[in-house]
């Protein structure tokens, strides 16, 4: 097992285990911190796949943005003074059976298919090609993304404000 494989297994295990805990833990704060580890593991795998730009964006947006927002949500909706963080599960058995079937079929299909089995030459950095594509061919979508973010800001402010 070379170093590359070892790093993959490390991040994959980190991702799987923490993702599992996000869904099973009773404490919502633990869930949030496990989600942090999942995001971090996924970012590590992005680096292995040669997607350095996305790895950084993953850390900035998911860990730095979305997760912080969620922690704010947890803090604002559970009064710190009377810690009553109750989060039960329901429909566990029917959901597990259905999802188990789905999982089996999906993974069996993925493993059975013949894929091209070596990555293309991993570029030194994906920053330049992605930047060029975003500013040229995908400029229209990029601008739309700006509109979407603007609207999301306005909307979030308009329903969360007190008066």
């Amino acid at each position, binding site marked *: 097992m070379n170093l590359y494989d070892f790093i993959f297994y490390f991040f994959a295990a980190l991702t799987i285990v923490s993702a599992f805990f996000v869904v099973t833990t009773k404490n919502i704060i633990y869930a949030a911190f496990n989600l942090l580890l999942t995001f971090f593991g996924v970012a590590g795998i992005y680096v292995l796949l040669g997607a350095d730009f996305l790895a950084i964006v993953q850390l900035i947006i998911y860990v730095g943005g979305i997760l912080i927002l969620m922690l704010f949500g947890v803090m604002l909706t559970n009064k710190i003074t009377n810690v009553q963080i109750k989060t039960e599960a329901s429909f566990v058995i029917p959901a597990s059976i259905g999802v188990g079937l789905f999982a089996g079929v*999906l993974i069996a*299909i*993925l493993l059975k*298919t013949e894929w091209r089995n070596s990555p293309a030459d991993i570029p030194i950095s994906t920053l330049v090609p992605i930047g060029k594509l975003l500013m*040229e*061919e*995908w400029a*229209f*979508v990029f601008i*739309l*993304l700006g*509109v*979407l973010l603007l*609207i*999301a800001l*306005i*909307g*979030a402010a*308009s*329903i969360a404000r007190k008066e």
Partner: protein
Amino acid sequence: MIPTALEFQLLLPVLIIAAGILISLIIEMFSSKSEKILPWFSIALFVSTAYYSLLTVGHERIIFNSMLAAGGTANIFFFVFTFGAAIVTLISIDYIKKIGMYYGEYYILLQSAVLGMMLMANAQDLVMIFMGLEQMSVCFYILAGFNRKKIKSNEAAMKYFLLGAFATGFIVYGIALMYGVAQTMSIPAIANGLLIYSDNIIFVAGLLLFIIGFSFKIAAVPFHMWVPDVYQGSPTSITALMSTGGKAAAFSSLLIIFTPLFATTQSTLFQPYLVVIATLSMLLGSIVAIAQTDLKRMLAYSSISHAGYILIGVAAGSELGIASVIFYLSAYTFMNLGTFGIISMIENKDEGNLSLNDYSGLGNKKPMLAALLAIFMFALAGIPPFAGFFGKYYVFIAAIESNLTWLAIVGVLSSVISIYFYLRVVVVMYFQKDENILNVEDSSPALLGIMISALLVIVMGIAPGSIINLISNFVK
């Protein structure tokens, strides 16, 4: 590649709305009279876009690095969305003041929701479909919860948001699997190799996940659990847009995906899935609607069963099927907008007057509104000569031509069931003694919007042949 001037010209409907959003923001920021200006500005925006879309309907072309389509069916959908949104704006003017939630953001969010719908209807790339869908959904999440002091509205927003984001997860994963096989996200490029990909189980699984995601958005059974709550809890004017424009936009994206598939020998690949959800939606929608006493909730179930009828047209998988889907969606849009418009006028400021009994004696007190509501109920039930009848007629014909006669029979059966709960409203209005005092505040803009919808419903019922011919011209 830099787009040419002609491409910008053909994209003008989208650009007008996009520019309108920014101008509305500036109006809202700087004008003290924005309360008066904004609604009429939005209406001007929507109507001019609708007019321009019809004007350029003949210029069919793929533009912007083959990311968007212009002309043809996309423009017909543009017309439905923008004209429908204009009617919704008319309905909203007095309604949102009545229930005490006037904020300028309302109209801005309405415009951006329409922008999202338009992008869904003319996308030629999976990325564009995703962007349009998210633009629309994000606006609807906010608008559903816009009446933020009412807990019902909060709940509706929450449920819509969680289920909507769940569906987005399916759609993105489906796109990922399709991309892995096809190595591209461009729909024309995927369409070229569709015959090869449709043997690839990963591609089919991806497409299926994508369609399941959209089944949430079109409110088909068994992905309908959010619909009654969200339609009931949201402000009525928003329910009107969600159940018409939102549904039409989701169907337009499904058609973009399905049209290339229908052209291949694999055209019946997803027929079993479509047939099952169509049957379930029609029957469950019609049967459960009978038990409802809240009018908005009843219309939510009716909306589920209409999704079922429209899915028959998609399952037929022929040119007539696609044309009939577009016809049905336009007819349904105007029928439903009118109905919700009347409900929003009768609703009082504490969200009362929504149950069926509150409509008793409406025929005496407000003969005009009662007559209009009767027209819409007849149209929704599919009674000739209104638009709803011909919508169902063409869909069923398409099904019979594609050897799905039994599905058409189920459709007819379900329409017969649905006549009961639609006509019950009419009976209550005209023949039931009124026990309660009904205070209906007059609103001339809303009445104008409702009358325009009624006019369109009648016109589509009188001249359905020429309209379906017009649509068929643009369905390849």
